[in-house]
């Protein structure tokens, strides 16, 4: 199953990247493919291409602020969580996404 995600938090120097790392780590363990875009103090990094978004089975937002360039995700099924949840319970999040999209 292919997933894409965006992480972002108010200061953008810690949680954004921890959540990204955690999602990547746990997804790999669970056998998913995932690409995580970070929107932090460094600006947008590892930016998602429109093709990648289109191909993804679902979009995960792990955010504490508004996502930038939201138009890219129009029409996609979006699962939104807090950054904290992504860091603390990445496995539960991914399981929930998996169940809902029936993957």
């Amino acid at each position, binding site marked *: 199953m292919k997933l894409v995600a965006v992480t972002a938090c108010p200061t953008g*120097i810690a*949680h954004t*990247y*921890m959540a990204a*790392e955690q999602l990547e780590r746990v997804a790999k363990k669970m056998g998913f493919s995932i690409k995580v875009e970070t929107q932090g*103090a460094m*600006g947008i990094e590892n930016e998602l291409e429109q093709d990648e978004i289109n191909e993804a089975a679902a979009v995960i937002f792990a955010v*504490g602020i508004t996502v930038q360039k939201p138009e890219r995700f129009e029409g996609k099924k979006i699962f939104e969580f807090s950054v904290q949840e992504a860091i603390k319970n990445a496995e539960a999040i991914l399981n929930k996404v998996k169940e809902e999209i029936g993957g």
Partner: protein
Amino acid sequence: MAAEFRLEFPLPLGLHARPASFIQEKCQDYKGEIIWENQRTQKKADAKSAISLLTTDTQKGDICRVLVSGTGEKKFAAELESFLLKELPLKEEQALKVEPAAAAIIPGVLHGCQEMFLVGQPASQGVAWGKAVVLKKQPGLSELKELMGKQADNPEKEIEVFRQALGSLREEIEKELAEKSGVEKSILKAHQSLASDPGLLRRVEELIEREKLSAAAALVRAVSDFSEELLRSKTQYIRERVADLNDVARRLLEKLGCALDAKKGLEVTEPSVLVAEDLLPSEFLGFQPGQILGLVLEKAGQTSHTLIMARGRGLPAVTGVAEACRLLGSGEEVVVDGNRGVVIISPGEEVRKYYEREREAEVTLKKIRKEKAALPGVTADGKRIEVAANIGHPEELQKAWEDGAEAVGIFRTELLLYGKPALPSEEEQFLLYKRVAEEAGGRPVIIRTFDIGGDKPIPCVKLPQEPNPFLGYRGIRIYREYYELFRSQVRAILRAAGYGKLRLMFPMVALVEEVRWLKDQVKIFEQELEREGLAFSPEIETGIMLEIPSVAMLADKFAPEVDFFSVGSNDLVQYFFAADRGNPLVKYFNQPLNPALLRLLKIAIDRAHENGKWVGLCGELAGDSRLTPVFVGLGFDELSMSSGFIPEVKAVLNHLRVGDCQELVAQTLEASTAEENEKLLEDYYQRQFSPELITPDLVILESDCGSKAEILQELAITFERAGRVGNRAVFEQALWKREQDVATEIGFGLAIPHCQSGTVRTPSIGLMRLRKPVDWQSKEGQPVDLVICLAIPSGEKVRPKLQLLPKLSRRLIHEEFRDSLRQATTPGDVVALIKSAT
């Protein structure tokens, strides 16, 4: 026929009490009438009365018409105009060193614990702890209605009574003056001049005569009327002067036998925190110094004289605390946090501990500053650069030595002349310079001879009006005409030089022949002294200011004539770029890193050095520690600054290597713009000087902190101690603000408090391990035993250093990395681990 002129009022705070009293002073001896008319407010005043002037509500930029009529009206009008435009703004600038009002900062300990506290504005630094004494709110003068209409049938007698009361009050203040010094003295003096204000006195006497009022009733009426006018002013500073007026009025009323019951609330039996709506200056002075621990005021303004005195005494104070008198009870224990602007009521154990730690931190930080001050003026690779202080008055010497000055790089003697009706005699000057030489105890002191003219008009030297005084008759250029002024000063310096190590320096030299003339005169003065049998030092080192570009270009020809040069950067910059430094429209020419200016300095310094002469810098730029590498690279031998900057400049200097600085300067000389050089300097700091993200002094391995508040406080103190943040209170508050968005506990026993704040100087990482896990007050949170604190300066652009923080954040997700941080045995190991992760 009256003489008149119009002026645009120049002072930023408008025409308030201090300048009004200066104007009164200037005008009072003129035999004739002087009317001040504000064209905006349409109000007229007698310029001989400070209070009357205040009621014109004159703001900066108001067009005022001044009418002088009487003997010599034209001459006096010209004199007054020059006084108002030149001398008055200078006096104001000197007097205005009041910090702007700041908003309250909530101390971390108040987050998440149940304490009662009140918020105001920080008004005087420090923390006080003690019992509150709430002073009864006093009736305003205008509320003394029963007095206002009180009639008297014998006006002559009432006037007599009133004059007696005035006389006795003046005597009383005179006595108090003898016991006071510094700020307190000058405030009492202002009160004394209020008590002699002819406008006020005339008004009172008029009311007695015309309306048959009693002296007390007339006084209350007059003061109420004046107060009302003052309160209508747009300038806060003027509104805040009502307290001074009321103070004097109250004391007068007492003398008139109308005790206002005011003093009753003022009995304090043990050292206490005073809580009041406002405290009049005389009330403040009425307490023994040890009786007051701190002040909590409802509405004293930041510029109120009571607060100025509190700062002078180092008494913590918070003002702007709404309803303080109602909310606080006498006998209640309170903490007054004058650093943050907060008052805590009946503080608990947590608060007590918090402030104990603050006090300890304060002691260490003072020690660090002292250590920096004690550093030698030398680069890391051993080049000696003398770090000196600029002074304007011998009283500043003590602080200069405390701040670590190794010398005085410039003693601006003309400041001694301000406010003096006559020039000081040679003897007077000799005693003063002798005292300076002796107090310096062998440290060199450069005495710069009078630099009068330009922006520095002096009342006792009447210079002609010039269209362009900065390019005109100033500095040594006036010495031929005002020969006696020059002669007496140089003779005094020569005579005093033997009592220490004095050096002589001349301002505004542009031509070699000027130096030759000056030296010839010095020789003549020496011969005179010899003939008169007066002792003097024949071989005084003599130098010139380098503030006119011609001297820089011809430095090799000047060098044989002098012993040293000292760059006056303020004037040099304005002469070099042809841009008036006081004119905001051309302020952008103030570019210390402009390559043209740097080339000019390089030429001058190299030519001086080739001829064996040394070069100092005594302008404002010398105190900017960011520029120190440039000054070292250019080859300056001495840096002289306001002494407050010395510890920081010394600390920077001790880290520099001359070779690196020279390399930097070589690059800056090739640039086209100041902006390019800003970038070069920034890169230099990145390369050479910017500290690592984490250093061992940011690592605390075994902390006993028992609460989140304690942890954040400890981190804030640690970061300030390590020089990473400017103000720990602001940093602590920024960390808390982030915690309030969402707590930064992220599971795994780990919390990552962080912030981006202007008080952070350089991107930094701190780490703290806790002996006992601590609750982080987060929802469903687990206790935390590992804390990693990230700090970023605000407005920080994307820089290599900053990109390391996300890298570290990612690594922290991995258990092995966290474990290794938990197991590291020394701060050095932690630093190495974090470096390996980033």
